[in-house]
């Protein structure tokens, strides 16, 4: 039976890096050295693009169907058996529609908008480990790469909104940018927690740490994960934080004037960004491609994709059930609530790692203690800070009375005007 467990032979498809490695080894024997790099990058990029596009197509149907079932209606069921050809219909429609450029729009920047938004959403997948040898570029600063490339969205959204020469587009772009830069800080701090624990910013090392200690960082740092799930939803403009493209509010935000395949790029970039956030959550907090030894039987990339789709399902679930937040509620939540909590979380995690490294505590004890302390202290911190800011239980009646009497600023606990 032991021969059944293939040990890295080129035909071992549990890790697609094995056949690719075999192919590159053969090419290296017959071609100059730089051809190997070119072929490797082409194979990696082609694989990621293929997977990304196919996943987007599949999730167009899945998302609309799941959200519809959650809202007690049927969803797409016309175009094919149970609506399964709906993505094909959507793609054909977007390809065949005329991509209008407004006459007063800035041609170069208008053209560059969708490109600048689509490319970062796709480039993030270069550092994500799909399997043990299946990372396109396992950078030493992988975690920073995730944040930096997601940060390219900010000027891209602004240029797209500005070049449309449309005041709704510009307003939507400004609101989107305010959201994006606020939640970028929360993202950085949330991603800093696992990096402190592991001591390395390389995503392969993070997955290796979780494999070595047989645990998921999710159990050790729940506060960071909750903050990152929310910050990730904001970064990709998904409901409940999709103020920028809420049809009832701002027409369609920064992509009002875009039609046809240009809108198709925005649509696809939104899905790809959602997948990128889900991939980052999976790699950093949920163990990546490992599943406590199941990768001997199940290919590691299938484990990774399963986890990714499960995390993305949480986002679809949130979209189907939660109401949309207002922009001032979102910004207050980021700056007044999440930022102090994440700073305290960073401090606590740093302290715990310091105590662990300085003393000779066994790994299991240390990690269990750290997890329990983080969980209880995090819960106490979240509830305590929310109460401190006035979101507690006992003041609802008082607040409503204040709102009907005051015009203008309402301070929590303020006296009514004399």
């Amino acid at each position, binding site marked *: 039976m032991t021969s059944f467990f293939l040990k890295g032979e080129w035909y071992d498809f549990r890790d697609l890096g094995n056949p690719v490695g075999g192919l590159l080894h053969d090419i290296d024997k017959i071609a100059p050295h730089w051809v190997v790099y070119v072929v490797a990058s082409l194979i990696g990029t082609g694989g990621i693009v293929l997977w990304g596009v196919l996943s987007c197509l599949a999730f167009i149907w899945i998302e609309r169907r799941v959200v519809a079932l959650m809202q007690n209606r049927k969803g797409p069921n016309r175009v094919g058996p149970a609506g399964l050809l709906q993505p094909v219909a959507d793609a054909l429609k977007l390809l065949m529609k005329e991509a209008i450029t407004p006459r007063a729009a800035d041609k170069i*920047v208008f053209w560059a908008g969708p490109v600048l938004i689509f490319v970062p959403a796709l480039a993030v997948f270069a550092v994500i480990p799909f399997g043990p040898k299946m990372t396109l570029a396992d950078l030493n600063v992988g975690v920073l790469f995730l944040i930096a490339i997601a940060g390219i969205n900010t000027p891209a959204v602004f240029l797209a909104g500005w070049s449309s020469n449309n005041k709704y587009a510009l307003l939507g772009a400004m609101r989107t940018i305010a959201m994006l830069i606020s939640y970028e800080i929360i993202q950085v701090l949330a991603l800093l927690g696992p990096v402190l624990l592991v001591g390395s910013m390389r995503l392969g090392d993070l997955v290796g740490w979780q494999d070595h200690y047989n645990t998921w960082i999710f159990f050790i740092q729940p506060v960071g994960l909750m903050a990152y799930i929310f910050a990730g939803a904001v970064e990709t403009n998904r409901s409940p934080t999709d103020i920028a493209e809420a049809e009832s509010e701002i027409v369609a935000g920064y992509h009002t004037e875009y039609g046809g395949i240009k809108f198709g790029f925005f649509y696809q970039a939104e899905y790809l960004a959602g997948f990128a956030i889900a991939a980052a959550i999976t790699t950093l907090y949920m163990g990546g491609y490992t599943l406590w030894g199941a990768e001997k039987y199940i290919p590691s990339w299938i484990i990774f994709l399963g986890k990714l789709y499960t995390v993305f399902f949480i986002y679809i679930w949130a979209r189907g059930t939660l109401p949309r937040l207002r922009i001032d509620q979102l910004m207050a939540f980021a700056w007044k609530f999440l930022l102090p909590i994440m700073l305290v979380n960073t401090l606590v995690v740093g302290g715990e790692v310091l105590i662990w490294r300085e003393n000779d505590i066994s790994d299991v004890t240390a990690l269990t203690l750290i997890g329990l302390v983080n969980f209880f202290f995090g819960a106490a911190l979240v509830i305590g800070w929310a109460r401190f800011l006035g979101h507690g239980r006992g003041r609802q009646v008082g607040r409503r009375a204040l709102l009907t009497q005051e015009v203008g600023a309402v301070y929590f606990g303020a006296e009514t005007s004399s």
Partner: protein
Amino acid sequence: MDSTGVIIAFYVLAAMTIGSAVSVVVVRNMIHAVMGLIGTFAGLAGLYVTLSADFIAITQILIYIGAISILFLFAIVLTPQASRNNQESFLRFPALVLALLVAGVLIFVALDNTWNLSHAPDFPETASTIGELLLKTYVLPFEIASVLLLVAVVGSIVLVRPEPVEED
């Protein structure tokens, strides 16, 4: 630094950087000038990667393209009509002569000098060493830089805030 890939990458990135910088000078629309500036920043990030300065490259993208470009774009939006054009002032010829002279002197010094070269291989990983240096040798500039950032943030907000309305 003598593999084919690095040579091609250097020339392409240098052309992109200098081309974008020249486009900042030449174009007439400020938004296009800021796009040229973003191209310069991106080209420089690529050049840092060829110099195996991975942390600085990612920091360049994160801060310059992610934040400072937005500052420029917002300033252009908030100063309409007066800031759409990108013309030169009457000092353009003396400035051109001075810029060419400065470039000439710097290039002459770069080519004529014999530098104390080290022939060391690429840096394996810079982030952890930079972190140690920031917190051990250069901790005082680090703390002063954080105070400086706080002062800049508070100062910018105080500068731009509208006058508080007097209550009767």
